[in-house]
């Protein structure tokens, strides 16, 4: 059953919105067509989570323009935490509601031809590149109603493109939903062209505890031949935001995509992280951590699909559940016919801190080829009393011992994040969510 959600925004609105942003015709047409499709497409049906009553229709699409920031000192403290105070982040984009509040790219990277900008600027200044990749190879408009709605209402995001460059410094984006009712229809497109490498880190942040809104985010990450992308993300939307976030990677020959995602939203969330390993020797490591608290319901999917020969996929999901939170962790390793010599491994672990919480780990292997390797491990359990005993036997209090065990449990992903301040900020968020 689907609830008939009347679309809150019509054709005229979208026409006007596209025009206000000086978009080319193809973008306007894509939006209008998507709007039409959204009408007839079904909602996605995440396994074992009923989202029919979630708020996907009550939001404000066109928020007030976020003011520019002259210097980073003007940012509120909560946002300062994302920034490395010691090593000044030279390559930084801050999106406040739907507009760019701050943007900087080092001279060096600019000279190397690195494109790192907001999505609207990219559409106007790098139209061909955006058109080439936007909802083409990774996510399609018509997958379900939410992808179509996303395409119709896209109102923010970032674009990254590098070619023949090995980036040492990370690129960081902070998406700050300042207006408590502003909806984020963010589109992030990260492309590493042949023989290039980059590190990208994004933070989502809001503080709408009472007011309701929606985040409908699509992120497409393309690693062309022999390219390497290290992608870090920390999602931290407040309780009032219902989130659909779809991060999808496509890796071609000898390419590699590393994901490290801290899924720390406080509202209901559907989060998909799917990577397609298209050609030979493509590799992906998908690592995610999450903490569920309060009454939130979340559905996480980590999937790696192997098309090419000798591709390698490793999934690791660690979740901590407290209060009355519910989470489903789907781990899917899929080897398509033709993906011989590939290896699909996954591990899902859920740590339960409350008897009223629910956490399910669903390991799934779908293998359509001989001569492959695949494996999975899944567990749902409580904090090991013997671990607590050991730590406490050195004088550490029970609370501190639990804290150590939980942080340790989430460390495989936290430690992987490529910016120190983002690591520290994620640890802070974990601390806040767990205690």
């Amino acid at each position: 059953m689907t609830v008939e959600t009347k679309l809150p925004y019509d054709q005229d609105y979208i026409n006007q919105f596209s025009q206000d942003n000086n978009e080319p015709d193809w973008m306007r047409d894509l939006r209008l067509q998507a709007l039409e499709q959204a009408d007839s497409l079904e909602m996605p049906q995440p396994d074992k989570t009923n989202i029919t009553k979630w708020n996907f229709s009550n939001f404000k699409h066109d928020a007030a323009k976020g003011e520019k920031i002259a210097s980073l000192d003007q940012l509120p403290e909560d946002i300062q935490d994302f920034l490395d105070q010691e090593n000044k982040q030279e390559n930084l984009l801050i999106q406040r509601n739907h507009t760019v509040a701050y943007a900087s790219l080092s001279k060096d990277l600019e000279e190397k031809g690195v494109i790192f900008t907001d999505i609207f600027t990219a559409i106007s200044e790098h139209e061909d590149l955006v058109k080439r990749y936007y909802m083409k190879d990774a996510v399609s408009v018509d997958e379900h109603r939410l992808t179509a709605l996303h395409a119709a209402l896209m109102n923010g995001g970032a674009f990254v493109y590098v070619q023949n460059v090995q980036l040492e410094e990370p690129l960081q984006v902070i998406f700050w939903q300042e207006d408590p009712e502003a909806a984020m229809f963010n589109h992030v497109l990260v492309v590493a062209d042949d023989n290039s490498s980059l590190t990208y880190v994004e933070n989502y942040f809001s503080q709408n505890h009472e007011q309701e809104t929606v985040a409908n985010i699509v992120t497409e990450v393309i690693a062309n031949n022999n390219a390497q992308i290290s992608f870090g993300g920390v999602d931290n939307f407040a309780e009032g935001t219902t989130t659909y976030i779809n991060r999808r990677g496509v890796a071609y020959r000898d390419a590699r995509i590393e994901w490290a995602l801290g899924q720390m939203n406080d509202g209901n969330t559907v989060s998909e992280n799917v990577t397609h390993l298209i050609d030979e020797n493509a590799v992906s490591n998908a690592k995610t951590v999450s903490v569920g608290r309060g009454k939130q319901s979340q559905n996480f999917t980590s999937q790696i699909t192997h098309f090419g020969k000798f591709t390698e996929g490793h999934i690791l999901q660690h979740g901590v559940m407290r209060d009355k939170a519910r989470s489903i962790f789907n781990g899917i390793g899929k080897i398509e016919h033709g993906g011989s010599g590939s290896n699909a491994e996954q591990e899902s672990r859920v740590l339960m801190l409350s008897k009223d919480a629910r956490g399910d780990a669903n390991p799934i292997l779908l293998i359509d080829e001989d001569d492959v390797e695949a494996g999975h491990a899944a567990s749902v359990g409580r904090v090991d009393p013997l671990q607590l005993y050991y730590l406490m036997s050195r004088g550490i209090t029970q609370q501190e011992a639990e804290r150590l065990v939980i942080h340790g449990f989430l460390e495989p992903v936290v430690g992987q994040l490529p910016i120190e301040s983002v690591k520290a900020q994620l640890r802070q968020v974990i601390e806040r969510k767990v205690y």
Partner: protein
Amino acid sequence: MAGSTLEIKNLHVEIEGNEILKGVDLTINGGEFHAVMGPNGTGKSTLASAIMGHPSFEITEGSVHLDGQDVLEMEVDERARAGLFLAMQYPSEISGVTTSDFLRSSINARREEGDEISLMKFIKEMDGVLDELEIDKNMAQRYLNEGFSGGEKKRNEILQLMLLKPEIAILDEIDSGLDIDALKVVAKGINKMRDEQFGCLIITHYQRLLNYITPDKVHVMMQGRVVKSGGPELAQRLESEGYDWIKQELGLEDENVEQEV
């Protein structure tokens, strides 16, 4: 008075309804090294675990006091902060927590808030002990006991002992899994702790360890009780003659007693 006193009286301990300790009496004073020996399955490790507060053991009778304080009323962490330490036979692996972070938390747990050990001082102390125990420095950055060899785990226990400097330490089969060179290094570390303030209870299956750490007193445990106590010469006799003569002397049935945990 020199150091602390740990006083165990008539201690009875059960696991899952099986009585393993059937009335143990033992007193350890600061400055004294005691060895508890005995065949497998006689309750030696149970004694160590019960004193520290292992969650699987139930104490049904008897008392344990540290300087007059009732240890059995304390939580595990309180026992540690009161001055007890147990070098465990099977220490837990804690993924994601570095050995160094754990050590620092343990040291700070004994100090007042606001009086935490400085990072520099901590690193200096830790590096010193790592050298003494001939432990590779990168162990500090490895996750606690995760993927450690048997020998590395034992050395890590002694590293903790030397950094935490407890009043009374219990070493539970710290020699098992150590080759002779490692044993010498570990023994050297333990001997360095020896002073008026420090009391130690060494639990061992073999006399071997006692060649390097000379105990002041040796106790033999059988069937859940301390059945014989003596000086270091007792350990040597056990090494050469085994335990049968004690059984005969005491008229004990030769039975396979309860499993050790």
